[in-house]
């Protein structure tokens, strides 16, 4: 059996890592650090873009505030106050961001005090470029609802982006570069959707290979995205709710 073969009847969704909410309070420093990194990876972009739009801050100022906010999370142990029964983590973080930025004098003081917290290496230039493609008109005054929606969409973009990147690395590790390129061409490109036949011709492989490769890539993408999401939720119930919202699985 190849390593990519599926195990029917098996549970392919073991929560491989603890929730970041629990892990940031761990006594194990390594686990704490890993949890913090996972949290930053998923949230820094939505938070940065949100600060730029919601608080109308210049890029350099928004960068400082984003860095400062993550320092604040550690210093004030904000995640320990999060109650998964009361709200979703991303709603809680967005409210924390609002409170943090509105009190930025205090925040800048904290940034100065936060010398023992490692400076986060974040690709702000990339985020700024992405922000340029946003559908929200920066000259208009966005409503609270549209900003909330914006934050949610950016969060999904961030989560899916991480999952796609992890899938790419998985494909490289398993010598399945072509699978990722097929996935990229079929599911990630902005242009008109190509058919399996077109892909088959383009890659000079049978259509069945395209079908199988895409089925595998999609399954892995789904698994990775759900695992990351699971990790970023405080409870099983929150995960179920978030999965429905993130993947658009709300009943219609």
């Amino acid at each position, binding site marked *: 059996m190849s390593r990519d073969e599926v195990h029917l009847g098996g549970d392919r969704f073991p929560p491989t890592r603890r929730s970041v909410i629990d892990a940031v309070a761990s006594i194990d420093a390594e686990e704490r650090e890993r949890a913090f990194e996972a949290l930053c990876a998923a949230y820094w972009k939505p938070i940065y873009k949100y600060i730029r739009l919601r608080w109308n801050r210049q890029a350099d100022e928004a960068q400082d505030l984003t860095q400062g906010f993550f320092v604040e999370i550690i210093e004030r142990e904000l995640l320990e106050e999060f109650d998964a029964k009361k709200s979703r983590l991303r709603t809680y973080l967005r409210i924390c961001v609002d409170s943090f930025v509105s009190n930025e004098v205090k925040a800048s003081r904290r940034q100065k005090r936060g010398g023992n917290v490692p400076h986060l290496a974040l690709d702000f230039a990339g985020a700024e470029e992405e922000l340029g493609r946003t559908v929200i008109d920066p000259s208009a005054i966005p409503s609270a609802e549209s900003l909330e929606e914006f934050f949610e969409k950016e969060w999904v973009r961030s989560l899916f982006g991480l999952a796609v990147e992890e899938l790419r690395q998985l494909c490289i590790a398993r010598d399945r570069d072509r699978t990722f390129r097929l996935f990229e061409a079929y599911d*990630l490109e902005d242009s008109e959707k190509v058919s399996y036949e077109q892909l088959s011709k383009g890659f000079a492989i049978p259509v069945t290979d395209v079908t199988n490769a895409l089925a595998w890539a999609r399954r892995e993408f789904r698994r990775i995205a759900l695992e990351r999401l699971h990790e970023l939720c405080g409870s099983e119930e929150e995960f179920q709710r978030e999965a429905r919202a993130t993947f658009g699985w*709300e009943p*219609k």
Partner: protein
Amino acid sequence: MKFLSDKALDRLRDAADIPDLTGTRYRLIERVARGGMGVVYVAEDEKLQRRVALKVLDVPGTDGDLAKRLTREALVLARLEHPGIVPVHDVGTLADGRVFYAMKFVQGQRLDQYIEAVASIPDRMRIFLRICDAVAFAHARGVLHRDLKPANIMVGPFGEVLVMDWGLAKLLRGETQSESRVVDPDATIFERPEASREVSAAAETSAATGHGTVMGTPGYMSPEQARGDVEHIDARSDIFSLGALLRFLLTGDSKGTASGETRRPDKALEAICSKAAAPAPGNRYISVQELALDVSRYLDGFAVAAHSESFFEKLMRFYRRYRFFILLIAAYLLMRVLVLFFMHR
């Protein structure tokens, strides 16, 4: 990291939604509905070469409450082999970790849509009797449906009536596992208000049926179900829902309170609905069979147990029941009178 456009996000959502049927006997055809727990797809069973409906959970995993509930729903359906209950063919876990079950693909209409084309009250009542048959069978097997409503009844192209969506079913006996507290948004479930939590603290102790979570659909849910009074939910809760369903079939409104075009059933039918949907369980029919018997009695022109008739009502019922013979005798007598009249002229 590659920037994902909004279009790419939508495509990825679609990609993640498609169930992975690798290694199964099914070939996906199309999505037909999305429910609270997951999605229903039409698929081709390639071995038996027939269409089936696949109910697939959204979230992967076999340990979660939803997965347990879906599996349980399949097991409940498996023990209910009846022409009025959709048969289950298969249950399992897909390659992507999602629990699914395969059932008969029912092509038809929901009851609320179907009856728009059925104007005759007796025809509507005959549909109701077939629903009663299925529910009575389930009760005999120790299963309560707990979410009977028009949206959960399908009528097939040959008039076959199928009771669907047993996701909230409760096993009255032989239940070995506690029920899930996971709620199904389809069933319009809502948390019991804080104030009532203390009142029914005893009910709270029964983790088996809902942990204080109200399950059911307003308008069709019995008062004890609405209170989350899990200790007192029995066959009579389904009888309440059947009463509301009968009222809906007769008037187009489950509570009989709508104004305007709402039809008003006659007193006997109204009494049947009121008895079935009585607020106190003790005032309802004691079994579905008894309710069905009363409806059959009405259809056959007999007196119903739920209503004590006045002399005039008895007379009218007698007339309706024997209208043909009464008119025949009347015509005969009239003819005799006319013959006698002309003979003696």
